[in-house]
């Protein structure tokens, strides 16, 4: 009996495990409340989005906090995951059972966002800092705009696509429209639910937290801290940057799969996939703490739910977030403020010591 208790305690000693424990606790509590029927339909509708934003935040933190490069294009990767998985589910809507169909859609969504993350990473990762940020923003917008004008159909002759109109697809009468331009994808089976979303959040957490504590993670962080020194000890900078960026894009794509399988009409609008969404996710990452994976999850959940639940706050939501963002950045990064903080800390410690001896 005592032994079990010890085991539990040592399980929570590792800080990564605390994160899993929090997520699972939230899941259990919400499931109980849902079963008890005390959760409003409004709140229960927010649970899956809360999870997919937390997942993208984890993915973006891998890019911003661990790799040290600012991406403003993660909404684009989410968009890719959402569209390709939704198109897949359209094809097999009636021919595959729900569970298997969603699993395969997940694989497709992740694979495509990883592929695009890789392809976009090749040119983008040659840049850094401001330029990298603005080019990822550009790619995100390009993805959104192209998917917004993409027509994709499938008939007995195979896939057809066009960037101008449905008619140009020239499909057979039996053809199926998968993506209908600006109208997007309609009637995607709602295969996602809260439990699946929590499960995928935990998967993304395991992937990122284990990565950080592995050989590859250390290599990625060494590049973040000092690229030239990393090269000098034999680290293949390009390889590890690509690895981190691709994984980060894949995780965003996974969130996209949840997105498209939780909504009946999927459209590549700025509201859901524009650079503003990428920035909103960046706000989650920054306020949760750059490099703190647990912080990203908590910040995404709280910052997403709070204004939705407190309707009065919604109007001021972004105003408050933007002010907090600026203040947090200055407090955590301004050299003058950091010096002052260090000074205060020293004084505090000294004071404590004096009190202790007195």
């Amino acid at each position, binding site marked *: 009996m005592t032994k079990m208790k010890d085991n539990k305690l040592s399980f929570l000693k590792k800080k990564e495990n605390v994160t899993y424990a929090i997520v699972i606790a939230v899941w259990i509590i919400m499931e109980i409340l849902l079963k008890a029927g005390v959760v409003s339909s409004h709140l229960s509708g927010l649970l899956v989005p809360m999870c997919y934003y937390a997942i993208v935040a984890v993915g973006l933190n891998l890019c911003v906090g661990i790799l040290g490069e600012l991406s403003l294009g993660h909404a684009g990767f989410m968009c890719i995951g959402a569209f390709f998985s939704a198109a897949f589910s359209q094809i097999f809507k009636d021919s595959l059972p729900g569970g298997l169909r969603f699993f395969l859609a997940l694989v497709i969504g992740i694979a495509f966002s990883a592929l695009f993350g890789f392809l976009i990473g090749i040119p983008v990762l040659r840049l850094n800092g401001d330029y990298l940020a603005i080019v990822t923003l550009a790619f995100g917008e390009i993805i959104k705009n192209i998917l917004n004008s993409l027509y994709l159909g499938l008939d007995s002759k195979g896939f057809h696509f066009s960037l101008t109109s449905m008619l140009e697809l020239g499909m057979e009468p039996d053809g199926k429209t998968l993506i209908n331009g600006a109208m997007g994808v309609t009637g995607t089976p709602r295969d996602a639910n809260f439990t699946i979303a929590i499960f995928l959040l935990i998967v993304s957490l*395991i*992937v990122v937290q*284990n*990565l950080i504590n*592995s*050989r*590859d*993670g*250390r*290599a990625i*962080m*060494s590049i*973040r*801290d*000092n690229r*030239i*020194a*990393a*090269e*000098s*000890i*034999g*680290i*293949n*900078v390009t390889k590890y940057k690509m*690895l981190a960026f691709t994984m980060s894009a894949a995780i965003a794509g996974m969130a996209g799969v949840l997105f498209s399988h939780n909504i009946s009409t999927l459209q590549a609008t700025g509201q859901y996939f524009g650079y503003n969404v990428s920035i909103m996710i960046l706000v989650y990452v920054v306020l949760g703490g750059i*490099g703190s994976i647990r912080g990203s999850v908590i910040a995404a959940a709280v910052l997403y739910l709070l204004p939705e639940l407190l309707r009065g706050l919604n109007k001021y939501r972004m105003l408050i977030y933007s002010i907090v963002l600026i203040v947090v950045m200055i407090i955590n990064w301004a050299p003058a403020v950091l010096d002052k903080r260090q000074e205060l800390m020293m004084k505090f410690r000294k004071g404590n010591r004096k009190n202790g001896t007195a």
Partner: protein
Amino acid sequence: MALLEVNDLCIQFGGLRAVDDFNLNIEQGELYGLIGPNGAGKTTVFNLLTGVYRPTEGQILLDGKNITGHKTAEINRDGIARTFQNIRLFSKMSVLDNVKVALQDRYHYNTLTGILHLGSYKKLEKEMDAEAMEILSVFGMDKDAELLSSNLPYGQQRKLEIARAMATKPKLLLLDEPAAGMNPNETAELMDTISLIRDKYKMTILLIEHDMKLVSGICEKLTVLNFGRVLAQGNTKDVLSDPEVIKAYLGDE
């Protein structure tokens, strides 16, 4: 055969020949000093040797292998490790991780193993921890292993940089002004550290230094660089008594 053989090395930035007609031979186990006035091109030589810059002309042979034009990371795997004039640690990583990241070429497991923490992950991580701690204890830093590297005192940071370079098991170690910014006590400690590396690992070392006491105290051979060219080369005592060298350092009176 010399461990390091540099032939007619030259690099041109725009119209300026920052290093010109540079030759150097370092034998296995030697402690070699590269000195010269500020701006003479010493760090540029290091950057050429480690592939940060590509030479315009010339050839670099390490252990008989031509490494000219190789990338920095490849050159490290070929066997050259270095430290930097302005310390370049992985500041947001622990002291232990700074060394572990330098070990990883010799402890291979793939990304999936790392992400899933499979069996060989645990085994290899344990071995890496053990070797990293061993290196740290040689440098007397094992008790600071969990500290954030940027929280180390200055002298310790320089030491950790050397420890990190040594963790890559180089054939040749380049030290760029290891004593810069150190007080006499720290410098004395550094000299001990350098002797220790030589004795324990039979390491060949090339160092840039301004501290003449350190240079004359530990270097067996010297090359003096002035305006990108070799001014004098040979045994430490001979070089330091060369009137040309004295003139370059003290100026024309």
